[in-house]
């Protein structure tokens, strides 16, 4: 005999497993802070490379002017400006990363909660059947 309630549970779990299962397990392997911190680290690397690229483009664009004024540039203030811009750039993307991955972590945990609830219900259903 087909058990409709069981089919419903198994279908929902199977759909979750097919679409989000692997990602859910991957995310669930971390505590929230660790998960966000690992992505912050990746953001740091990406943003640093991007900033270097943008700085290279800036140098290339102003190459002639820079060559003419290279001896009269106040190097300390230039480095300060570059560092400040880098910090602001990094800060913007860090905040974005925290917001995005916090939201994703919560979403995955919520979906996993439903999955485990269904799993328990399925287990109970089999237990009840055995006892009968």
């Amino acid at each position, binding site marked *: 005999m*087909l058990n409709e309630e*069981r*089919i419903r549970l*198994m*279908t*929902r*779990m*199977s*759909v979750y497993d*097919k*679409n989000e299962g692997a990602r859910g397990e991957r995310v669930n392997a971390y505590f929230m802070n660790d998960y966000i911190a690992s992505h912050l680290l*990746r*953001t740091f690397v*990406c*943003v640093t*490379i*991007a900033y270097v*690229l*943008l700085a290279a*483009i800036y140098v*290339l*664009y102003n*190459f*002639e002017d820079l060559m003419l004024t290279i001896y009269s540039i106040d190097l300390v203030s230039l480095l300060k400006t570059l560092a400040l811009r880098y910090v602001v750039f990094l800060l913007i*993307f860090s905040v*974005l*990363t925290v917001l*995005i991955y916090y939201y994703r972590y919560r979403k995955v945990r919520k979906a996993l909660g439903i999955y485990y609830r269904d799993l328990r219900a399925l287990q109970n259903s089999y237990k009840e059947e055995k006892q009968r």
Partner: protein
Amino acid sequence: MAYLLEIRAGIISAYRKYENYIVPAFRFLVVFAAMRILCARIGYSRNLSGLLPSLIVSLVCTLMPAGGAAVILGLVAAAQFYFLALEVSAAWLVFLLLLLLLYFRFSPKDGMLLLLYPVCFALGIPYVLPLAAGLLFLPSSAVTCAVGIAAVCFGRYIAANESYFSTSVDATEMAGRLKFIIDGIAQNRQAFVMIGAAAVSVVAVYIIRRLVIRYSWHIAVVVGAILQLIVILLGDMRFGTNISVGGAFLGTLVSIVIAEIIVFFLFNLDYSRIEDTQFEDDEYYYYVKAIPKMTLPRANRRVKQIYTSRQDLIGRLRDDPYGDGEEPYPEEDYDGGDYEDEYYPEEEDY
């Protein structure tokens, strides 16, 4: 309307039946169209611009997520630019790398918009994509729209200055050419105005469609399209972007029609979430097709009437006890017979 609903039912049943073929076929067509447009506009290498490379790239991209397909199209464009000039290819690759580091890093799910932008630009209806993005995705899709517009405008700028880049130069002039490319991108006011218009439209459509009001999706489409047109017109007046006003108006009208078609098919049931799944227990193998139910937010309305005095309330109840704006015993209905039998409606009418 009944005829339209019949057509919709027919299309939906065909979609249900052949969903496994329709979705990849649609993706293949979009990528193939984007490839052909790319080859027509910036086809600087004959070998890469043929039909066979387009077919191969489209087939490969069909098997990938939309974001990955967009990156592959970007690499094909870089190869095409290489045959025009090394500096153009380098600038495009830097643009692509920046996108990978700062945008694709967050793995957005609306990559299909990037594939559709070249196609919609070629058809003269780029205005439909911000509307579709607001209807189907999150406000963050405004960034995807911005990336799509920037990429298409980059290609157009290079194609417009093809003769400048096609002459060979020595290494010392390369920096000058790079400066020319960066100038062209940074001073492309048309692109900035279109990006601003798209961003405003995506956010407006998203906010309005989520409001709990009647016809919110339709209102969102119309308001989003009008806002987009207004920003484009204001931008044209302020910055002299040379956007064809007639073209923008016509494109917006067509975009509204297409967005309404999207609403027509997506509003009642989200057929994009149909799931085919299979599993087994001790006794059976199950092959299940799960179709999501229609769940619409229902407005919880309570009408509260406030009367200034008790006399006012009694007067209103006497004049209009049912609250339907009609008198309880209209004189023209009374013909001298048994009034109660004739006036009060049958029970099933309630």
